[in-house]
């Protein structure tokens, strides 16, 4: 097991539950590198997940505090935790279905409120744990288990949506851009506000098999790389290109949600609830 997995993860949860060649473990490895480079310890970070392959793979791997929420609701749980324990870093790792379909409204409102969490949306372009149905991020025209004639709906860019909603840090990368992803996650974790990092990764078992016609791990990862570069391996332009990098950086430009709430409770005269909140911060108030 690599050094950082030994330092931060629970050995009983490794090897990963993902299929061979699945990008979920790669991205998790890069998250560990970002956390380590920032000098954060297990007890500094709360790791939250939702449902699906991304949730199942990352749930309970983190050696420190972690939680698994119901489908689409990881940000509701994270909101409560952030209000109760504002000093921790919250890393919420969810699938595209979780973030951009069933959980869209939670995502939009967490961004609007500038809730102090970092959401890593690991996007395999479908609902892969339930058999490879299309999701809002499936590229238009692509064949999936539930779109045998090609996805008829246009796709949806969660980065645009969270940016419009008010997220203070928004970035996009893919599972072939390790240095860029580590750098971006570090910046995201340093924003005391809502950060959203969208990372595309290969699913061999479903997206690969239906949309690309292959379960060859190398071909599926190469396909992700080509769409990052805009060129196929033999030099032809790809059908579409993902623009990756930081899309919006207004880090620490406006107050974080839980801080606004605490200030408000104090202004309102210090109820027992505010005392409880202050105790969490280490300041004991007589009630």
């Amino acid at each position, binding site marked *: 097991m690599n050094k950082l997995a030994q330092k931060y993860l629970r050995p009983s949860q490794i090897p990963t539950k993902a299929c061979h060649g699945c990008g979920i473990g790669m991205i998790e490895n890069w998250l560990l590198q970002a956390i380590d480079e920032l000098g954060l310890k297990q007890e500094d970070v709360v790791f939250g997940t939702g449902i699906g392959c991304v949730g199942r793979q990352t749930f309970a791997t983190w050696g420190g505090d972690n939680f698994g929420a119901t489908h689409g609701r990881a940000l509701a749980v994270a909101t409560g935790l952030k209000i109760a324990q504002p000093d921790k870093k919250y890393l919420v790792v969810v699938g595209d279905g979780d973030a951009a379909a069933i959980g869209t409204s939670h995502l939009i409102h967490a961004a609007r409120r500038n809730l102090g969490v970092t959401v890593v949306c690991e996007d395999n372009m479908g609902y892969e744990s339930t058999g490879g149905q299309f999701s809002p991020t499936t590229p238009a025209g692509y064949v999936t288990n539930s779109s045998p004639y090609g996805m008829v709906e246009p796709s949806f860019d969660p980065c645009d949506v969270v940016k419009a909603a008010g997220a203070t840090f928004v970035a996009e990368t893919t599972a072939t851009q390790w240095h860029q992803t580590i750098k971006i996650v570090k910046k995201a974790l340093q924003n005391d506000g809502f950060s959203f990092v969208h990372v595309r990764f290969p699913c061999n078992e479903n997206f690969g098999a239906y949309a690309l016609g292959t379960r060859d791990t*190398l071909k599926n990862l190469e396909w992700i790389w080509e769409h990052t570069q805009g*060129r196929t391996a033999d030099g032809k332009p790809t059908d579409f290109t993902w623009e990756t990098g930081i899309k919006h950086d207004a880090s620490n430009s406006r107050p974080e949600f839980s801080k606004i709430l605490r200030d408000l409770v104090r202004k309102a005269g210090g109820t027992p609830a505010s005392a409880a909140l202050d105790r969490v911060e280490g300041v004991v108030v007589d009630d």
Partner: protein
Amino acid sequence: MPLFKPEKKQIAQNAGKWDVVISEDMCKACGFCLQICPVDVFAWRRTANRLGWFPMYVAHEANCIGCMLCYQICPDFCINVAPKAEAEPAVAS
């Protein structure tokens, strides 16, 4: 430019200074490390591990140039690459 370049380079410069370790019991044989390594370090085992995969092993450690590409790409946290500990200086008798 493809991500996986089939041709392997013969790089002697900086080689031989790295320990490469694979947890063979965790390897799911995706083949990424073998393909991404710019020099020839990895090879397939002919016996299955406890997961049922035929894992990768470190066949030519002396070729390693410490680029860490294999470390970054492995999806199953299997690989560690670290500089070799300096050889103990011989004790004069």
